[in-house]
C-alpha cells in the first residue's frame, strides 16, 4: 500500500473552468453577476425591471438557471435581453461547465453585463464558482427575517444583498433592521440595496450601481 499526496481542492475542476470563463469575459470587458436566492424572492422580476430600466444604456445578457421549464427565459427575453436557459433536471445549483456551454450560445462581444440567475436555493449555489465578478444574494420581506442567520454561508460568500418586496413591509412581520444586522455580522463588507420590484422604489439606486460596476468601479 502506498500513500500518494494529492493536496488539491475538491472543486478544482470547477474552479479551473470558472477561471477560464472569468478571463474570457474580462477580456471582452464584460462584468458578470451571479444572482442567488431562495425560490420566489424575486430574482427574475428584479432582472426584468433592471433590463427595462437600463435599455439603451447597458447591453445585458442573461443565463437563466432553473430545475425545469423555460418560463423565466421567456420572461427575460420579452424584457429585451439575450437569454439562454439552463435546465438542471433536478440538480440544486449551477456549475461552471454549464455556464461555459451556455456562453457558446450567446453573442458575447455585444454585451456589457452578463447576469447568471442561479437555481432558487440558499445552500448549494454558494459552493460553486461560476466565473462571476460579483455575487448577489436576494432576500424578500415575505420569506422571514432569519435567512442570514439560517444560511450564513450564502451571505458570507456574497458581496451584495438585495432586500426585495419592500412594499409589503406593513403587512408582514419582517424586521428589516434585524436582517441587516445579521447579514452584516456575517459579512461586514456586504453592500445592501432595499427595493421593491413592484413599486419601483430603490430600483434607480440599484441600476446606477450596476452602471458603475460595468464602468469598472469594483464593489
Amino acid at each position, binding site marked *: 500500500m502506498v500513500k500518494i499526496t*494529492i493536496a488539491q481542492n*475538491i472543486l*478544482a475542476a470547477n474552479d479551473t473552468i470558472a477561471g477560464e470563463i472569468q478571463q474570457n469575459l474580462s477580456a471582452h470587458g464584460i462584468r458578470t453577476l451571479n444572482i442567488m436566492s431562495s425560490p420566489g424572492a424575486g430574482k427574475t422580476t428584479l432582472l426584468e425591471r433592471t433590463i427595462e430600466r437600463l435599455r439603451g444604456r447597458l447591453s445585458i445578457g442573461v443565463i437563466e438557471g432553473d430545475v425545469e421549464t423555460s418560463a423565466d427565459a421567456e420572461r427575460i427575453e420579452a424584457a429585451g435581453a439575450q437569454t439562454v436557459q439552463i435546465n438542471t433536471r433536478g440538480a440544486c445549483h449551477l456549475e461552471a461547465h454549464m455556464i461555459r456551454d451556455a456562453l457558446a450560445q450567446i453573442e458575447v462581444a455585444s454585451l456589457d453585463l452578463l447576469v447568471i440567475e442561479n437555481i432558487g436555493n440558499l445552500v448549494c449555489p454558494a459552493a460553486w464558482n461560476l466565473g462571476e465578478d460579483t455575487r448577489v444574494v436576494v432576500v424578500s420581506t415575505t420569506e422571514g427575517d432569519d435567512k442570514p442567520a439560517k444560511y450564513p454561508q450564502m451571505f458570507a460568500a456574497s458581496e451584495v444583498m438585495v432586500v426585495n418586496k419592500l412594499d409589503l413591509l406593513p403587512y408582514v412581520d419582517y424586521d428589516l433592521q434585524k436582517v441587516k444586522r445579521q447579514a452584516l455580522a456575517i459579512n461586514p463588507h456586504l453592500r445592501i440595496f432595499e427595493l421593491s420590484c413592484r413599486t419601483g422604489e430603490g430600483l434607480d439606486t440599484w441600476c446606477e450601481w450596476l452602471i458603475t460596476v460595468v464602468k469598472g468601479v469594483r464593489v
Partner: protein
Amino acid sequence: MHELAIAQSIVEAVEAKAVECNATSVKGVRLKVGEASGVVTDSLSFCFEMLVSLNPVLAGAHLLIDDVPHRAYCRHCDKDFAVTNFVAQCPTCQEWSSEVISGTELQIIEMEIESS
C-alpha cells in the same frame, strides 16, 4: 443535497490521479473539510460510499475526513478565536476587523493505493 456533486468531484479527481500512478485499486481517501465549507460530512461519506461501490478502481475505498474548525485572527488583540455561526467578531475586543484563518477548506489530502 450538493454533497453528491462534491462526492462525484472527489471520485473523478482521485480516479484521474490513480490512473496517473498506475494504481490497480484505491484503498482510502483522506479529506480536509472545514466547518464553514457548507458540507455535511455524514451525507458526503454516504454519497462517497455509494459512488465507489460502482467504480472498479475505487470499490471499497474508505473515506477519512479531517474536520477543520472555523477560526479567525484578530489583528487588534493578536489572537485567534473560534468563529460561532459565521460571526467573525473578536470575543475579547468586539472588533469586526478579524480575518478567517481556517474552516473553509474542501480539499483532497491524499490517497492510499495498490499498484501493479
